[in-house]
């Protein structure tokens, strides 16, 4: 190969996930830049860091949950919790996990045993856990938890973020920059919006769906972010739009409904917002100390919202539980927390700590922490780059 040709090809060909990564990163960089003019001096930052550490330690020692957590904190030497279990032998909180790894999605049973579903990109559970919707290259498919395929439908481009409606009758997904909805049996699908942002759509939970329909048949209310950054709520069967916000400059990174469906949470790089089912803005809470949001997950019951934020100046990530404006940090550590999921009962949280190559099972009510190490190796077939797996769903 001639060097000239190599140069040309390297400059012209995007790498895997380059464009999606660019849009996510731009939001983070933009918010950081906007805050820059109000940033404190480096000296005050150091003092603030020391203060935060001191306050956090006091908080851990004094709070009921902290009593249990502090033992772990003292034992953290490198990123990660010491005395972590070397392998996954139990899911605290029960249920089953869908896990996206480099070889494809896996299903992990409550006893830690796991099975690779096949050559797919990502998976999402159906509401009762009978099937998983999986993304193949240019198709959406449904498979049984043992990997047996049920149906496949073609898509105009790579399929991303499939989400099964709580009724089980619809599956929403993104493909080629569009939002589409397929039937739960894979018979038909249609495009609802041709220009949307790369943010996973969110179905309103069933109680609110049923109430919104005004009859015995549930409506299928779906929230999504369009390409201008506006959040829209539509009735997926009729295509009728219920409401839309104005384009939001800080484009939301994630959407999540509260368990009752009364509140739609928007995770922004600089905070959390909430809208009512009728489109009224209810809350707008900004993160303090220049931290940047990255992941959130609404509890399956009750109003709690688990949020991961990160302070890039201190290279520290925080897991907090929010109830409206009230916030409580549950765990913090160096590096990146890449995901958080609630157990089906809402009793446990699974925190994905990439820089420690660990999963932490955390019980927020008591502060119990159970760590499992070498996670990337446990989802590695030996031939592919293990990377760090991502929990795509924790089901019943």
């Amino acid at each position, binding site marked *: 190969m001639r060097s000239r040709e190599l140069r040309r090809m390297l400059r012209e060909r995007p790498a895997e996930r380059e464009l999606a990564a660019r849009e996510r990163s731009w939001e983070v960089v933009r918010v950081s830049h906007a805050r820059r003019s109000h940033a404190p001096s480096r000296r005050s930052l150091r003092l603030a860091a020391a203060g935060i550490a001191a306050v956090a330690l006091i908080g851990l020692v004094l709070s009921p949950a902290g009593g249990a957590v502090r033992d772990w904190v003292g034992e953290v030497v490198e990123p990660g919790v010491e005395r972590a279990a070397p392998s996954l032998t139990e899911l605290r909180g029960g249920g089953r996990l869908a896990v996206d790894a480099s070889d494809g999605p896996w299903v992990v049973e409550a006893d830690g045993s796991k099975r690779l579903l096949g050559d797919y990109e990502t998976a999402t559970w159906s509401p009762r856990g009978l099937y998983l919707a999986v993304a193949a290259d240019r198709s959406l498919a449904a498979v049984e938890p043992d990997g047996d395929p049920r149906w496949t439908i073609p898509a105009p481009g790579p399929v991303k973020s499939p989400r099964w409606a709580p009724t*089980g009758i619809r599956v929403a997904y993104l493909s080629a920059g569009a939002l589409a909805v397929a039937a739960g049996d894979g018979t*038909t699908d249609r495009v609802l919006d041709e220009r949307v942002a790369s943010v996973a759509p969110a179905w309103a939970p069933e109680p609110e769906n049923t109430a919104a329909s005004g009859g015995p048949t549930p409506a299928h209310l779906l929230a999504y972010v369009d390409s201008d950054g506006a959040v829209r709520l539509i009735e997926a069967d009729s295509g009728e739009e219920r409401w839309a916000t104005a384009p939001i400059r800080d484009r939301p990174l994630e959407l999540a409904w509260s368990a009752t469906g009364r509140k739609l949470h928007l995770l922004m790089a600089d905070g959390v917002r909430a809208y009512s089912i009728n489109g009224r803005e209810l809350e707008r809470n900004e993160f303090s100390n220049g931290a940047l949001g990255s992941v959130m997950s609404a509890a399956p019951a009750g109003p709690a919202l688990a949020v991961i934020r990160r302070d890039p100046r201190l290279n520290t990530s925080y897991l907090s539980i929010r109830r409206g404006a009230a916030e409580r940090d549950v765990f913090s550590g160096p590096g990146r927390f890449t995901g958080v999921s609630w157990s089906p009962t809402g009793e446990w949280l699974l925190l994905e700590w990439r820089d420690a190559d660990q999963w932490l099972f955390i019980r927020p009510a008591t502060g119990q922490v159970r760590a499992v190490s070498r996670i990337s190796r446990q989802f590695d077939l030996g031939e592919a780059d293990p990377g760090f797996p991502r929990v795509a769903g924790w089901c019943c």
Partner: protein
Amino acid sequence: MTATDAAESGRRWGVSSEADDRRLWGRPAKDRRPLMGRLTSERRLVAQACEGSEEALEQLFRTHWPQAYRSAYLIARDASAAEDIAQEAFLSAVRALDRFDRRRPFGPWLSRIVVNRAIDFARARAIRSEIALEGLGEPAADERIEPVVSDELHRAILGLELEQRTCVVLRYLLDWTPGEIAELLGIPRGTVNSRLRRALDRLAQLLEEGGG
């Protein structure tokens, strides 16, 4: 039978329609302005970004993101890590805008941060792999791991040793001279040239084996 049961066992619905097949990659035309013109324009953008212009920052970001991300990806061999590394480099740049020497070009300064962090990541992971596999009696993993990558050229580069692919990225993606690469990596210039030669030979071999 509930609605969920019915749906999950196969109920039909809806109207079928198809979305237009669109190209995923919309790349801007290559900037062909003379180098000095680009540098002057870039200095102005840095100055404007420093004064708070989001538009200027966005232009800088979108201009330099492809090289930053690709460099990190090809060296670290991990898309998630590449996103973090490139993002962190831009965040560092934003934090250091006030102190940035505007006589220097922005791109190489950013690239230096990205490349150093990507090398650190790749080395750390290689060490972690060795430790993890020690007890299993398997060979060190780094060089036998082949990520699943659709692009043939990228796959071939990811198959090179860390030292070789770093030189390839610096020379052919970022356009650094062998002297600049030698200085960054702290190795003799002759070593850079020999690594590049071996890398090109190996790339040709890998592409041939892969049908390319």
